[in-house]
């Protein structure tokens, strides 16, 4: 496959997915050419390959004009290092720091080498994702020195918020440097929900792995489970029945609608318009209850399994789903009219938390928030996997990049998802919903790439010769988008932060692996 001027010798791994290996030094040149043609770095992770007669490995997933390129480089077993990519793709910064915390692989010459996931919970010279990690070691209770970047000047002071908040929400620390109410700088610190997910995958059988993958970030269950299954099915070269693939798309769109409804309600709540909150959450609750009735779980947990799906849809269920989809469409239309005509709400939403398109492109804003800042990427539209290649998804974009734009994208996507659901229901093919996976012969690998409601979800899988998982890396779009929240807050006032934060609604659990 050619990117820029060069042929990088990438082989197809799946539909729109390419696989290649190269020297660590070449990663820089490749990244530059991808950046040149307008591509992005999606994910960066490491692996311990010493048991496979190698050293360590560094992996990058790059979005290019011809699809997703997964490139890897072998690194030495002693003092593994690779060139810093953060100066080309700033979104790599936190991923590089996390990779060091877990595996001890260094990005040479990286500007920022503060800890990201460690939080003093294990000794500094121990790396838990290495295969020779001894889990019986007692936990340490160090405190990391974590210097925040200080803003100096007359009347500047800091407000430290979290990781424990006044409400029951996920933990994250936000350090505001403010003058009066105006925010001069915001810096986040995360990693408080690090729970060793990637380590837990090691040695798991393929079916249990799907359950864990789905639980990386609970609100994106279907996207993760599908991406994981796609990766495992690619690795084992197993085929999935057509009906199962269509049902997976149905689950994904159901999940998207549930989350968008919830977020639109929250956006109303954050400007104290509880009416909007209650109405959207009524719609969401009805939607979840219907989902529970049809598929046995409100959030569709464990409906997607390797080789197909676990729950089928009956004809009566099909009718109920279509009916509820119609009802949601009507109600959302009237609620949108209320939001559109509410002067105070519009005043709060418009020009708040702006991420300009050029900045969004430079920092790699992705997914829903990216589309609200003119980053027109949607894997369902540009690089569709089955069955989206037969559905002709229309992408919704905005240019303003403010809270209002992100709300608008959600409204448009709800309508598009409802249309897709109707289409999926009408054309749902008959047949089996599950075929067993082919047995694993040797070490094999695969990658899954699914457009979840928040953005693209990536799961890379390597299966050992014994048929058990050897290395799984789930990647959440929140990795790229959290730093943009810092940028979007600049120049806004402190009391607008919760609103801006909610308009992104990023995951803590997803990146805190």
């Amino acid at each position, binding site marked *: 496959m050619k990117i820029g001027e060069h042929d990088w010798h990438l082989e197809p791994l799946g539909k729109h997915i390419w696989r290649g290996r190269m020297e660590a030094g070449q990663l820089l040149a490749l990244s530059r050419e991808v950046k040149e043609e307008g591509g992005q770095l999606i994910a960066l992770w490491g692996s311990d390959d010493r048991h496979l007669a190698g050293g360590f490995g560094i992996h990058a997933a790059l979005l290019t004009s011809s699809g997703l390129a997964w490139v890897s480089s072998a690194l030495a077993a002693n003092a593994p290092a690779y060139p810093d990519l953060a100066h080309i793709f700033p979104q790599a910064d936190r991923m590089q720091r996390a990779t060091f915390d877990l595996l001890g692989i260094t990005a040479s010459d990286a500007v920022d080498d503060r800890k990201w996931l460690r939080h003093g919970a294990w000794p500094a010279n121990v790396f838990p994702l290495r295969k020779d990690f001894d889990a019986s070691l007692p936990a340490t209770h160090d405190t990391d020195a974590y210097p925040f970047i200080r803003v100096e000047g007359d009347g500047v002071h*800091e407000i430290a918020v979290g990781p424990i908040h006044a409400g029951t929400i996920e933990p994250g620390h936000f350090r505001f440097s403010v003058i009066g109410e105006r925010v001069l700088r915001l810096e986040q610190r995360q990693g408080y929900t690090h729970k060793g997910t990637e380590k837990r995958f090691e040695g798991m059988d393929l079916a249990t792995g799907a359950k864990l993958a789905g639980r990386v970030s609970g609100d994106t269950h279907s996207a993760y489970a599908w991406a994981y299954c796609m990766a495992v099915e690619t690795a084992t070269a197993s085929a999935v029945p057509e009906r199962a693939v269509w049902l997976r798309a149905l689950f994904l769109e159901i999940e998207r609608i549930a989350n968008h409804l919830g977020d639109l309600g929250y956006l109303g709540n*954050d*400007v104290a318009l*509880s009416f909007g*909150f209650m109405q959207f959450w009524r719609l969401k609750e009805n939607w979840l209850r219907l989902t529970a009735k049809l598929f046995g779980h409100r959030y569709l947990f464990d409906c997607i399994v390797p080789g197909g799906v676990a729950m089928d849809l009956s004809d009566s269920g099909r009718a109920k789903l279509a009916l509820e989809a119609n009802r949601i469409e009507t109600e959302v239309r009237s609620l949108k009219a209320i939001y559109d005509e509410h002067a105070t709400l519009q005043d709060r939403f418009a020009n708040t938390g702006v991420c300009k398109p050029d900045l969004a492109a430079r920092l790699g804003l992705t997914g829903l928030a990216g589309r609200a800042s003119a980053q027109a990427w949607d894997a369902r539209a540009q690089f569709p996997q089955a069955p989206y290649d037969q559905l002709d998804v229309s992408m919704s974009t905005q240019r303003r990049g403010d809270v209002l734009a992100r709300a608008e994208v959600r409204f448009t996507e709800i309508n598009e998802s409802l249309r897709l659901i109707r289409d999926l229901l009408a054309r749902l093919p008959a047949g089996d919903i599950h075929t067993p996976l082919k047995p694993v012969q040797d070490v094999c690998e695969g990658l899954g790439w699914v457009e979840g409601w928040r953005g693209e979800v990536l799961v890379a899988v390597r299966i050992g010769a014994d048929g058990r998982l050897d290395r799984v890396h789930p990647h959440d779009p929140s990795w790229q988008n959290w730093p943009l929240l810092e940028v979007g807050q600049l120049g806004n006032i402190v009391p*607008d*932060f*919760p609103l801006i934060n909610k308009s992104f609604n990023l995951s803590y659990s997803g990146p805190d692996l």
Partner: protein
Amino acid sequence: MSTGILLQLAQTLLAILLAPLLMGWVNQCRAWLQGRSAPPITQPYRTLKKLFHKDAVIAHNASPLFRFAPYMIFACMALAAGIVPTIANDLPFSPAADVIALVGIFALARVFLALAAMDIGTAFGSLGARREMLVSFLAEPALLMVFFTASFIAQSTELPVIVATLAHREFAIYPSITFAAVAFWMISVAENARIPVDNPGTHLELTMIHEAMILEYSARHLALIEWAVALKLFTYSALGIALFVPWGIAAQGDLAALPLALLAMVAKLLLGGAALAFLETISAKLRLFRAPEFLGTAFLLAVLGMLIHFLLEV
């Protein structure tokens, strides 16, 4: 005189005991208007009971002021509730303070609350105190202007005289009072930390004004502050009633009119509470820096009321 003192005591006690009920009523109306099932009207009492049964947690670096402030705030609000005529007019306490002193009593409570908020030294306390001062320094002059408009009509700043003039002399319509009433409504919303200036129901610490100041309080201290908040809402409602719809308040010494006065007050509070809930439901919270515009409008309306008094009514 002794009946006067008895009446005064009864009225003050009634205000203190029934204030949470008004809060409960407003919350109930809000819930209904949002389309959800409402908490019982007695919910604020249950919250108070719960809080009084808890052990207080106080920061290590809290000064005595922090412990003392809730009692001070509660006392100020109870005093204010005693001064404003709710059922009977011209009770023994009334001459103790005129409307200007009343504004001072509210200010005293606020100063203690803001000082206590800054006492612990957390970011949120000072954040809330700063915002509260921003809101109140704009609201106070506007409130004084409203009182002056009423005082010009009654030729006195004493509340009993104002009430007697408006309620018990010949029935007259004052255009100036209408302007003052709208201004008073806007000021009350801001002073009582209601939507669109503040949101009493939020858990988002960065957006809070009043709630941010009391984040560090717990147990009996928090209970007293919550009770004082309910009392403040009650007192402002009673003030609004006394100034703008005083009909029904019993004149001095008119014991026979008391039952009717009680009924009239309950009806007015029910209506006022429902109206507050309705306006809160349809509005969203203003961006913080729009609050000065909101209160500036209130000030302007109050001044307009005064001008109209001189143009049309003198």
